[in-house]
C-alpha cells in the first residue's frame, strides 16, 4: 500500500494484519480503542476473527488459547488493562507461546489519567507478572516505526516462542502521520509450529500439551533455565537502538518513544546555541542496549534521562553507566508531555548555561 | 501389571459360558463403589492381601451369580474392570 495518513493505533493494527495476524482478542480502554475498532472492521473482511472479550483478563486467556492452537494473535490495551493481563502473560511465557501485546501507556497508578505516560517501563521490562521470565519490549518513536516494529514483533514472537510487547504511549497512539506498509515477508528460518494443539489427527497421532505446570522442582528449574537460554540469545542478537549526534556530545540524552522525539527537537535548539548534545535512543527496552553506552561514556560529561515517569528506565541507565559519569533525570508524569524547551533548560543547567 | 481373571474359589472348575470379569488389579484403590453398586452382591475387597498401591483390591467372589451387567465396570473411576460375556 502507498503512504497513507494514519492514526498511530490504526497503523499498529494495520501492520499486524499485514504481518498475518488474523485473530484479535481485546477490550476497550482509552487511549487505544482505535485498535480493537479497526480490527473489528477489518478482520471479518479477510476471514479473520475479532472477539471483544468481557475483560482484559479474559482477553489474554483467549490469546493464550489461540496462540496455543498455532495462530498469530494480537491483543492491545493500556496500562490498567495490561496490569490485568499480567497473570496471563506469565502463563504465555511459561508455556513458551508466541503472541504480540500492545500497551498504549497512560497516566497511572490506579485509574490515573488518559494522557500519555511512560510509567509502565518497570512492568514491561522487569516482569509485571509472577515468576522468572521476560517479554521482548519494542519501543517505537514514530508511526512508521510503530508499524515496522509491530510486524517485527510477530516474527520475534514466533522465532523465540515468547510474548513480544510493542510499548507505545497515548501520544503515539493518537498522532496522525504518514505510514507505508510494504508487502510483508516473514523472517527467514522461522520454526514450524509443531507444538500447536490442532488435534491428534492433524499432528500424526502424538498428543500435544500446552502447559506451564511443573510440580517437580528439578523439572521446573530445568524448564526455566531452558527459557533463559532463549533470553541469553535474545540479549546477544536482538538489541536495537539509535545514536543521534553522539559523536561529539557532552550531554547524552537517553530517551525512548515520544520523549525521544521531544529530545530530538531539544537537541536542534541546543545545537543552535552551541551546546553539544546528542541522543541515545533505546528501541528494544528488553533487551536493553547496555552495549550502546561504553563508546558514548568516554566522551560525555553527563547523561540526561528524560522520561514521562518518576524514573524507571533511569535504573537501567545507572547500570549501563556504572557510576563512570553523572546522570541527571528529568521526568514529567500524570499525563504531562514535556516540551522541548524544558529539556533545553535541563541541558543548559548541566553545561552551565547556553554555549558560546 | 498383575491381572486377575476370576473364577471363584468356591465354584467348581468346569466349562464356563457365563460372563468374565477381569481386574487390572494394581489400578484398584479399594474404593468399594463396585461392591456397593453390584446388583447381585458378588464383589468384595480381598482383605488377605494388598496390591502394589497398598490397597485391598476388589474381587468377584461368586462368579456364578454374575449377570454380566457391567455395573461394576461402569462405576469404577479407575477403569479397573473389563467385562465379557
Amino acid at each position, binding site marked *: 500500500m502507498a503512504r497513507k495518513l494514519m492514526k498511530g493505533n490504526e497503523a499498529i493494527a494495520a501492520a499486524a494484519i499485514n504481518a498475518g495476524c488474523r485473530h484479535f482478542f481485546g477490550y476497550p480502554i482509552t487511549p487505544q480503542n482505535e485498535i480493537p475498532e479497526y480490527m473489528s472492521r477489518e478482520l471479518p473482511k479477510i476471514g479473520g476473527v475479532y472477539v471483544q472479550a468481557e475483560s482484559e483478563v479474559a482477553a489474554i486467556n483467549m490469546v493464550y488459547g489461540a496462540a496455543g492452537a498455532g495462530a498469530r494473535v494480537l491483543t492491545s490495551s493500556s496500562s490498567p488493562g495490561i496490569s490485568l493481563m499480567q497473570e496471563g502473560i506469565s502463563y504465555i511465557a511459561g508455556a513458551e507461546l508466541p503472541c504480540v501485546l500492545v500497551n498504549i501507556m497512560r497516566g497511572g497508578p490506579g485509574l490515573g489519567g488518559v494522557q500519555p505516560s511512560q510509567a509502565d517501563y518497570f512492568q514491561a521490562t522487569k516482569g509485571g507478572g509472577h515468576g522468572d521470565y521476560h517479554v521482548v519490549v519494542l519501543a517505537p518513536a514514530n508511526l512508521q516505526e510503530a508499524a515496522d516494529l509491530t510486524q517485527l514483533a510477530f516474527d520475534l514472537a514466533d522465532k523465540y516462542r515468547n510474548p513480544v510487547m510493542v510499548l507505545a504511549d497515548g501520544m503515539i497512539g493518537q498522532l496522525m502521520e504518514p505510514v507505508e506498509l510494504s508487502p510483508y515477508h516473514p523472517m527467514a528460518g522461522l520454526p514450524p509450529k509443531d507444538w500447536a494443539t490442532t488435534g491428534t489427527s492433524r499432528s500424526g497421532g502424538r498428543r500435544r*500439551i500446552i502447559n506451564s505446570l511443573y510440580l517437580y522442582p528439578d523439572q521446573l528449574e530445568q524448564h526455566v533455565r531452558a527459557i533463559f537460554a532463549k533470553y541469553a540469545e535474545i540479549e546477544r542478537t536482538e538489541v536495537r537502538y539509535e545514536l543521534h549526534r553522539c559523536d561529539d556530545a557532552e550531554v547524552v540524552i537517553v530517551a525512548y518513544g515520544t520523549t525521544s522525539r521531544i529530545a530530538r527537537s531539544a537537541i536542534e535548539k541546543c545545537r543552535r546555541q552551541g551546546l553539544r548534545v546528542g541522543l541515545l535512543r533505546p528501541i528494544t527496552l528488553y533487551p536493553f542496549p547496555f552495549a550502546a553506552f561504553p563508546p558514548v561514556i568516554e566522551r560525555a560529561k553527563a547523561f540526561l534521562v528524560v522520561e514521562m515517569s518518576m524514573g524507571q528506565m533511569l535504573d537501567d541507565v545507572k547500570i549501563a553507566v556504572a557510576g563512570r559519569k553523572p546522570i541527571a533525570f528529568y521526568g514529567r508524569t500524570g499525563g504531562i508531555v514535556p516540551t522541548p524547551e524544558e529539556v533545553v533548560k535541563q541541558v543548559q543547567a548541566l553545561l552551565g548555561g547556553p554555549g558560546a | 501389571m498383575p491381572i486377575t481373571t476370576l473364577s471363584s474359589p468356591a465354584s467348581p472348575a468346569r466349562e464356563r459360558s457365563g460372563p468374565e470379569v477381569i481386574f487390572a488389579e494394581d489400578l484398584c484403590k479399594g474404593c468399594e463403589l463396585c461392591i456397593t453398586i453390584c446388583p447381585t452382591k458378588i464383589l468384595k475387597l480381598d482383605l488377605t492381601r494388598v496390591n502394589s498401591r497398598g490397597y485391598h483390591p476388589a474381587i468377584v467372589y461368586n462368579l456364578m451369580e454374575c449377570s454380566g451387567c457391567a455395573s461394576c465396570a461402569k462405576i469404577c473411576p479407575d477403569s479397573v474392570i473389563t467385562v465379557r460375556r
Partner: protein
Amino acid sequence: MKTVYEKSPGLTDIPMHYCPGCTHGIIHKLVAESLVELGVLGRTVAVAPVGCAVFAYDYFNCDSQEAAHGRAPAVATGIKRVHPDNIVFTYQGDGDLASIGMGEIVHAAMRGENITVVFVNNAIYGMTGGQMAPTTLVGQPTTTSPLGRSRLGQGAPLRICEMLATIEATAYISRVSVHSIPRLNVAKRAIKKAFQMQVENRGFSLVEVLSTCPTNWGLSPVDALRWVEQNMIPAYPLGVYKDIEGGT
C-alpha cells in the same frame, strides 16, 4: 465372548491420581467414551482447569491446554476460534467455574461459543483442602465455614444451570449425577448429547455433574454417593434446563 465393558481408548494409560472413589474418574470416562463414539477424538482439544483435575491433560487421549484458574472458557474460545472444526471442551470444578471463572463462563455462553463445558460440582474446593465453594450447601461445614455455611455473610449456593439457561445463545444445559447406574447412564447420554450439539454447531453446551469429594466431605466413597442423593439433589434438581431441540 463379546466385550461388554472395557477401558475407553479416549483415556490414556496413565493411572489417575484422584482419591479412591472420586467421581472425577467416572466423569472422565463418560467424556472419553462420548468423544470416541462420536468419532471426534482426533480433532478434540481439552482445556484443563485448576483444581483436582489440573492433570486432566494426562488422562484425556487428545491435545490439551492447561488454563489459569477460571479462565478455561476464554482459553477454549481462543482455541475454537482458530480451528472451528475442532471439538473443544473445558472440564471445570465449582471453584474454577462458579467463583473466579464466573465472568468467563457467562460470557462464553453469552457469545454462544460453540464449545462444551463439563462442570463438576462437588460443593467444595477439593484440591486446596476443603474450603467453601459457591456451591457449598447452607449449613455444610468446610475449612472456611467451620460452623457450616451461613446465609448471613456467605449467602446461599449458586445454581449454575438455572442461571446459564437464561442466556439466549445456550443450546443445551443439563444437570446430571453419577451416584447410581441409572443416573450414570443418563449422565452419559447428556454428555454425549452436549458434544453432539457442538459437532452440529448448535452453540454453547454445558453439563453439570453432581459429584463427590469423599476426602474433604469426611465420608467413605460409598457414603459420599449417598450424600449426593440425599443432600445435593434436593438443592440442585436434576434435569434438562435448556435444549434448543426441545428435549427433556
